[in-house]
């Protein structure tokens, strides 16, 4: 058998010499079929292991946290160390405040940046640089964002000579939200058919009017989905807050004072040696997880509804 001319070597051999005759019915005892079942079993096992932690975490959070669910949980302050009872009212409020500050900063900047990338930039070197920078920013560890905001806001005391503040925490979260918002805006605008823009220009609309009245509304669903997911992620972030927003055992005292958040409360109270505090950490986890899962399911529902329409 010379590999240089396989056709010639085929001529002398009959079909039976070349191919072993086998029945064409499926034979489960063949090695290839047994291997096939083995690997399918392994994949199934891996899938089960991957889903297991979600179940376990959810069950523990719902059971341990749900036990404490009561009206006073949302209306009372956390107790001093060693005492029982109390609630996480200030932390629930604080999480909402800090997340709103972050959204108010990150959404306009992110949507504007995304509009520039997709509608104006023509993908030149600057746009590529911004896209690359955006990817890098998305990979920056969340704790580094906290260090950054500590350096420019907390240590310098630029806001009314206040150091730790709700605004500082909001800025740190905004740094984390920004790449997601830019990316989803850019990707969402890419999906808008070019004909819509041409149509708008055709009836005499300016570029500003086209973008604000035609393009952005057409891309509303993917952008809204991305923003909801970004907010949900920011609400659960802890690392950027521990030395920007810090913590406070009191009710929020405006935007320029330290503020309690649920995520920092969980961190602080989980490592305390007091049962009451540990229990409140579970309760805060319950509230936080329910809020975040609800936001995720909402985002999913928005995009599903839009696909049907």
């Amino acid at each position, binding site marked *: 058998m010379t590999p240089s001319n396989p056709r010639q070597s085929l001529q002398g051999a009959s079909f039976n010499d070349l191919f072993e005759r086998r029945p064409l019915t499926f034979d489960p005892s063949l090695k290839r079929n047994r*291997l096939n079942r083995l690997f399918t079993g392994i994949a199934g096992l891996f899938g089960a292991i991957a889903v297991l932690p979600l*179940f*376990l975490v959810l069950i523990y959070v719902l059971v341990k946290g749900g036990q404490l669910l009561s009206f006073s949980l949302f209306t009372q302050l956390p107790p001093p160390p060693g005492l029982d009872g109390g609630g996480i009212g200030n932390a629930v409020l604080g999480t909402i405040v800090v997340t709103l500050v972050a959204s108010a900063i990150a959404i306009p900047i992110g949507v504007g940046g995304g509009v520039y990338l997709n509608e104006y930039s023509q993908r030149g070197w600057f746009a590529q640089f911004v896209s690359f920078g955006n990817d*890098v920013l998305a990979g920056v560890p969340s704790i*580094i964002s906290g260090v950054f905001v500590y350096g420019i806001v907390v240590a310098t005391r630029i806001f009314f000579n206040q150091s730790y503040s709700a605004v500082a925490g909001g800025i740190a979260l905004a740094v984390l939200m920004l790449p997601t918002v830019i990316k989803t805006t850019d990707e969402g605008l890419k999906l808008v058919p070019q004909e819509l823009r041409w149509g708008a220009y055709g009836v005499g609309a300016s570029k500003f009017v086209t973008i604000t009245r035609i393009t952005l509304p057409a891309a509303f669903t993917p952008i809204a989905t991305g923003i909801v997911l970004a907010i949900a992620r920011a609400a659960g972030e802890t690392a950027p807050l521990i030395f920007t927003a810090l913590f406070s055992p009191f009710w929020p005292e405006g935007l320029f004072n330290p503020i309690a958040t649920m995520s920092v409360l*969980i961190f602080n109270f*989980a490592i305390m040696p007091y049962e009451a505090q540990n229990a409140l950490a579970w309760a805060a986890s319950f509230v936080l997880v329910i809020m975040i899962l609800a936001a995720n399911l909402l985002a999913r529902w928005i995009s599903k509804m839009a696909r049907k329409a």
Partner: protein
Amino acid sequence: MTTDFRPSGDADAFTLRRRPPAEKLVDTGFRQLTLALASLVAVVLLGIFLVVFDGAREAIGQFGLRFLTTSAWDPVNEEYGAFTAIYGTLVTAILSLVIAVPLGLGTAILITEDMLPRALRDGVGLMVELLAAIPSVVLGLWAIFVMEPAIRPALQLIHTLLGWSPLFDTVPQGPGMAPAILILVVMVLPIITAISRDALNQVPIELRQGAYGVGTTRWGAIFSVILPAAISAITGGVMLALGRAMGETMAVTMIIGNAMNFSPSLLAPGNTIASMLANQFGEADGIQVSALMYAALILMLLTFAVNVMAQWVVRRLSLRY
């Protein structure tokens, strides 16, 4: 001549309108505004680097490269070295990936390759995505009170069996590197699964049909056709997950034990750069802040290198089919 578009007799039917200056101003103003907002990304990124680098300068001057290889962390004598934290960062991140990659890839194959009924497949996919949404700090809480006590007997067993090796020569007593690795597995699993699933879904249907057409089995097709076609995106996803694992802070901080003295053992308490920052940054002063900034700079450069490599891998390894 531009005004002659007007049809004769009916003056209102069609008029050519000149754009008023205000409209032009709004138009260019909006363009400049979005340009400025887009530039903010670069400004923030540069700002992060400058703030961290500026903060680290003092420590860089004092400790130099010795910082990377020594493990003294002594606020009293003002002697700092980050080897313990760097070792912890790399070991926890890499070992968690060693466990998470087969699990995530297996799950991704399970939900893309038509092995389960559609509803179950979507269910598994949804679960893994929701797992990604659970905050790190909640996973940390769960790790402290549920996971770590539950796995301690298993770690004890590993210690009795493999205690001769320096990797397992400490008695597991609560927080340590091993539980931190396991909680990192939980955190990077959704990323690897999601990216692998997207990569597998993008493999052209013709490749699958061709493989099945020449009579291969399902796993024959997966191993010799589908995985090689998707390998670039999967590798990119694994690198992104590595970056995420190195920078992950809260869950690790809560379960790793935050020991500043070096031990190679996986069963001993350890430290990562991120957990060291979370623990000490708020209370540090003087040269310790600078040393922490230096560690933060190392963490930034590590994640930056990994992320850039991820993008490079995706471009370099992608098959042309």
